[in-house]
């Protein structure tokens, strides 16, 4: 469970990039975080994951404050950043065992988990090669595998579908559904409205640092009393 409580962030004095944002992502829920470019999606995700300091408010991950108890809070989530170009000089297997060491994945479990994830994403045969030799999509897959290795309760994914081929994208969506079904949380940002519509239990739309809508798609349609497409509704909300 992710609880965001009245958080604010300013990069420049007197100009809030995130303004008093509150949100709760419940267990067993897939939550899509939408918004136009520069709306504050990445800033919010960076605050949730501890990359950025929070000026005001707090964020709790399974009850642990990212502000006061950062190490414990970080143990409760797996994060996939938007840029998968990391540790390019490591071999795939080296990266995954390193991540397993960081997240204390027990010896008896790690082989099974690495094989399961990498075979699902069809990169198992590439594990002995340096990540540098991978395509963009393969890099995205290895980073996702690294984040999910420790079976974290909360998944936080920044634009996870970017660069994935249709099959991997389908598999990831399936994994997200399974994860939520087992009572855990998925929080992800995306630009692809169709993905959000089909996958998410609820969505949050952020614009100019403020959360302008939170709810299901049905609630969105009811609120705007329209039978328009999601794209039109999104544009209407964000251009207001």
């Amino acid at each position, binding site marked *: 469970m992710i609880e965001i409580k009245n958080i604010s962030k300013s990069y420049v004095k007197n100009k809030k990039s995130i303004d008093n944002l509150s949100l709760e992502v419940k267990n067993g829920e897939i939550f899509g975080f939408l918004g136009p470019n520069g709306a504050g999606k990445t800033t919010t995700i*960076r605050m949730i*994951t*501890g*990359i*950025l*300091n929070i000026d005001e408010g707090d964020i709790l991950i399974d009850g642990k404050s990212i502000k006061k108890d950062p*190490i*414990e809070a*970080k*143990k409760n989530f797996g*994060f996939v*950043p938007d*840029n998968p*170009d*990391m*540790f390019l*000089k*490591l071999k795939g*297997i*080296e990266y995954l*065992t*390193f991540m*397993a*060491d*960081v*997240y204390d*994945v*027990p*010896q008896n479990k*790690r*082989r099974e988990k*690495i094989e399961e994830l990498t075979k699902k994403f069809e990169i*198992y*045969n*590439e*594990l*002995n*090669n*340096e990540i*540098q*030799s*991978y395509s963009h999509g393969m890099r995205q897959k290895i980073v996702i595998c690294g984040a999910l290795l420790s079976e974290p309760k909360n998944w936080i994914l920044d634009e996870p579908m970017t660069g994935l081929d249709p099959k991997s994208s389908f598999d990831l969506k399936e994994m997200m559904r399974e994860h939520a079904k087992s009572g855990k949380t998925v929080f992800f940002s995306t630009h692809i409205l169709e993905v959000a519509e089909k996958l998410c239990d609820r969505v949050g739309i952020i614009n100019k640092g403020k959360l302008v809508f939170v709810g299901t798609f049905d609630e969105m349609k009811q609120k705007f009393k329209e039978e328009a497409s999601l794209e039109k509704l999104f544009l209407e909300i964000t251009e207001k």
Partner: protein
Amino acid sequence: MNKVLELTKIFLKTSFSSMNAKMGVSTKFRGKFVLYGLLFVYFAGLIIFLSYNLLEGLIAINQEAIFIAMVLFMIFGFAIFQSIFSSINILYFTKDTEYILPLPLKPYQIILARTIVMLIAEYALIFLVGLIPLTTYGILTGVGIAFYIKMILAVILIPILPVLLINIIVMIIMSFAKLTKNRNRFQLIASLLVLVIIIALSVSMNGIKGDVSNEEMAQMIVQANGMLEMVKGYFPTVDFLINALTTNLVNVAIFEFLKTILITIVAFAVYMLIAQKIYFKGLVGNLFGGGYRKSNKEIKQKEFSNSKLYKSYIGKEFKCLYRNPVFLMQCLLPAILIPIVIVAITYTSLNSKETMGELTQMLGQMQVNTFTVACIILGIIQFFTMFIYISITAISRDGENAVFIKYIPVSLYKQYMYKIAPNIIMNVITTLISLGLAKYILNLPIITLILLLIVSTIMGILQSILMIIIDLKRPKLNWDSEYAVAKQNFNLIFPMILSMINIIILVGMVILLKDINIYVGLLILGLLFTIITIVVNKYMKKNQYELAQKII
């Protein structure tokens, strides 16, 4: 030719963009200007001081001309050493090549522009190590204006041939890139091969002359400027320039310069011909060879095995360092290579039993196991270790993915320590090599060597902590070529400044504790640096989160 100049300007701008980008911020620029100014004054002062003392001694025995030869050889050596590291990086590992190749430019224009950029980069340092001592010579010996004109011309001409020579060696090796499937491994092997070939060349050049017998040496010392003849014969153009600078006859000087210019022009023409034939083959192979991927279904059980976090983390840091040719050559190798080259040259120079015997005899009469000698050795090690750029680039090397350290559940302080561990290890290795040399020449007692190792390691830990703090405070995370972090990074000036401060502390200690027992002196030094290290470490631990604020 206009296109060559335009291209050179672009290459120069991208090379020094880190400096230009911030020039608009006047206070920062002023700060840098002051810092550079201070460093310049420090080094210029040091060079003048050394030159003055050396020249006084040489003038007394009528051998002042050998000073010119020494300076010209030093410029030549600097040019070789600088090009080893810059050539392969500038010619092959800069990312702008991808944008330059599709442009409607002729191959020679690109090669010429790249070569000019390399030469300009060389001149910056060479003017410092060349012009200052030669001017000191001019003032002390009271030579006329003609000497200064000859001096400038010589300093401009000397670095050209070494740069061309090393570029050609690099190009030949890199032209095999297209033959290999594993580009990454090839880049690594090629980089090392270039280093080995050039070091072998410089060491063998040192041995070419063979030993000069004692009688011959005595005879040469008696003759006015007789020692000059001893150092000639290594490289033709350097010899011509030595002749040109030491002669008083205008026509001889002009003739020597003409010979040098002619050889340089011919060499340049040959270089351009060869380069046009082989440079692009290697470049394309290197750029577009594609990542080599072998399909390997079976992964051995041990590759899944877990290790302690510190082992895993430090191992990851080392792998990311040595598997990247630019980081390997800029951050790791210089610290090992500089002492090794000095060891190799010293070994070949002292190889003759006669010379070694004389040296040992001479040192035998001197008291070497003193606090002053210990501080000199520590000072030399400080000079070597300032080339270890691991800690000062520990955060910046990760680029945009430096944020990784902030979202994993490991304390930032621990991660900082893991990141500086390779720097400390390399520091110990450099110290061991240097102490090995000290043992060989000075035959110091083992207890002194152990104490020196301990003090130097403490200084290494201090250096590593301070440098990562600087990198955290001024990280360079938005780069598109590793070269921008490992070479064109203003932060790299800080290890130099720290070594300078440490050397000043050592000199101060020598003055304060001149006649102290070596062991007591080293213990005091060790204690002093331990206290400073503890204070700095506490600061880093206490401010671990604040320090990481610029990593976003």
